[in-house]
């Protein structure tokens, strides 16, 4: 640290002297510099995130033609999408996927965080192993999961058909939409519970231990300590996790599409509509807008009614 001061001190100090004489106050200079430093980031975010979102809304009113001029069609795309049974079935699949994967990941994260909050040998190693599902690239873990459920060689069928006899034959669980959605949910829980675990664990570690001691003196059992101290303390972070998980899981594409082609959640349905077959970008844009509106609606509801901010 000392060395850094010295180095900084040796810098030619022309800039501050010049700035004092150019007639601007310190606040004004700070304001200018603040904007100058943040401007590149803001410009790029505006150009590549905000503008596309608005342009997407614009596109949803057009019959988009990639090589020529697009044709304005008003609300035709919206009417077509809303009248499409596949859209409603995709929406239903999405809701099911989001509800179960969010609840599963949050509950499992809570449970694992409670376990990891105890002291035991090798805890450091165990804690980092738990995070592996979350950081591993989706593409590198989907194949292992596919193999796990593979009807011929997979271990799942080996256990539940050969050893336990729960199935009457070897079934390809990823192969049919009805069962594949559950595989996708289990995969999502496995992949994402470490996020909930990490957030809850850091909250647990911040709880004042005196609370527990006081409760013990008053004769509280472990169950009561959990109900009246731990749960209220993690209540806020759990709500935040649920909100984030719903947002993320609702928008999930890769974790579903790369695992199985049989689960058409909204993102996958939109992708297939816009980039395969007839490449209907206009309808794709409409679907993306509808999905976004649904999400905003949910966020507003959740924040106002459940978290009560």
């Amino acid at each position, binding site marked *: 640290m000392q060395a850094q001061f010295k180095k900084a001190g040796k810098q030619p100090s022309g800039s501050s002297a010049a700035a004092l004489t150019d007639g601007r106050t310190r606040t004004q200079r700070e304001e200018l510099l603040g904007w100058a430093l943040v401007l590149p980031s803001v410009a790029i975010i505006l150009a590549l995130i905000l503008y596309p979102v608005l342009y997407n809304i614009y596109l949803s009113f057009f019959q988009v033609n990639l090589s020529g001029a697009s044709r304005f069609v008003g609300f035709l795309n919206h009417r077509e999408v809303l009248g499409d049974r596949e859209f409603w079935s995709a929406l239903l699949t999405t809701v099911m996927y989001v509800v179960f994967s969010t609840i599963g990941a949050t509950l499992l994260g809570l449970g694992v965080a409670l376990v990891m909050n105890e002291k035991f040998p090798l805890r450091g190693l165990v804690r980092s192993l738990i995070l592996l599902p979350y*950081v591993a690239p989706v593409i590198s873990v989907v194949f292992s999961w596919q193999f796990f459920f593979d009807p011929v060689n997979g271990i799942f069928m080996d256990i539940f058909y050969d050893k336990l006899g729960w199935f009457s034959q070897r079934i390809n669980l990823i192969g049919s939409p009805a069962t594949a959605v559950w595989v996708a949910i289990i995969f999502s829980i496995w992949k994402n519970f470490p996020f909930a675990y990490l957030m809850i664990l850091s909250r647990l570690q911040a709880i004042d231990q005196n609370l527990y001691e006081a409760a013990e003196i008053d004769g509280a059992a472990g169950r009561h300590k959990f109900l009246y101290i731990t749960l209220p303390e993690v209540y806020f972070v759990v709500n935040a996790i649920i909100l984030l998980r719903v947002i993320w899981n609702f928008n999930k594409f890769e974790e579903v599409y790369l695992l199985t082609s049989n689960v058409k959640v909204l993102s996958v349905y939109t992708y297939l509509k816009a980039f395969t077959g007839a490449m209907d970008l206009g309808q794709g844009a409409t679907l993306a807008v509808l999905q976004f509106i649904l999400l905003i609606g949910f966020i507003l509801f959740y924040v106002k009614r459940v978290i009560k901010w």
Partner: protein
Amino acid sequence: MVTGKRPLRKIGFTLLVLAIVLFCIFPFLQMLSLSLKYQWDWGNPSLIPSRLNFDAYKELLNIGQSLKNVPESIINLLDESPDLTPAQRSAILAKYQDTGDVFPFLKYFGNSLVLSLTAALFSVILAVFGAYSFSRLRYRGRAVIQRGVLMVYMFGGILLLIPLYKVFVSIGLLSTPTGTFIGLLVIYMVQTLPVSLYMLGNYFRTIPFSIEEAAMIEGASRFGTIWRIIIPLSISAIATVYIYSFMIAWNEYLFASVFLKSYKDLYTLPIGLKTLFVSKNAIWDRIMAASMLTALPVMALFMTIQKNLTGGMAAGGVKE
């Protein structure tokens, strides 16, 4: 809760921990095991291969593959005709080697590496200045920008993909390989920028302003203090953000699959693997070996920043 007093409870607790660990790492163990098994061993539910088979790794890493597809007779022929020039020899061999059957893993690996390293670098450079501005300077509009950056949490990839694709096609960016590469680079950069800004901003606020003040009294400019004080003091946070950005770019599939559709030479690992899986070469050992090699860099990097992540610095500052 767990004390030595009740041994039964202790055993139960240990089993619980083991079950959690197994649940987390089983897919990785299976991946490793299958990548080392022979085909006749796949149906064997044991994770330990009956006999080790390194062929998949050798093939992907291009070790000892040069003469694999060349028929015996051609090799003999070449041996018996010493008057051929080296150029002619390699031309003959090339005919047999390039059967399109080989999965160019190393090329895809290289593409992914260049793209991710560069995108993360730009993202971090922009974020250092932006985050400094957030956390240190006071100006009108700062709160709006800060909150606006967090809005990005709500935008899924698909919402941005369609308009960006349309724009990039319209301006002709996707008609050349270079343009496509740059387009993807910029997208990866902007995807991680908001989170980088947020994480670094939070970190910079923990550095006492008095240190900077002292340097400025001694005549250092703002840029001087950023370069000589802020960056050295937060180098571990910057490294964390860099690695985080790298990982996001490394794992990305959605944009790459649409943009790179017609440029096979630019494929990144995620599309490469997906293509390999649906192709006729879909053989479990190769798929698993490729999965292992794709996961390894990310896992290794993650282990290096793990302390910072679990320390809570990144808590709340991640986006999927």
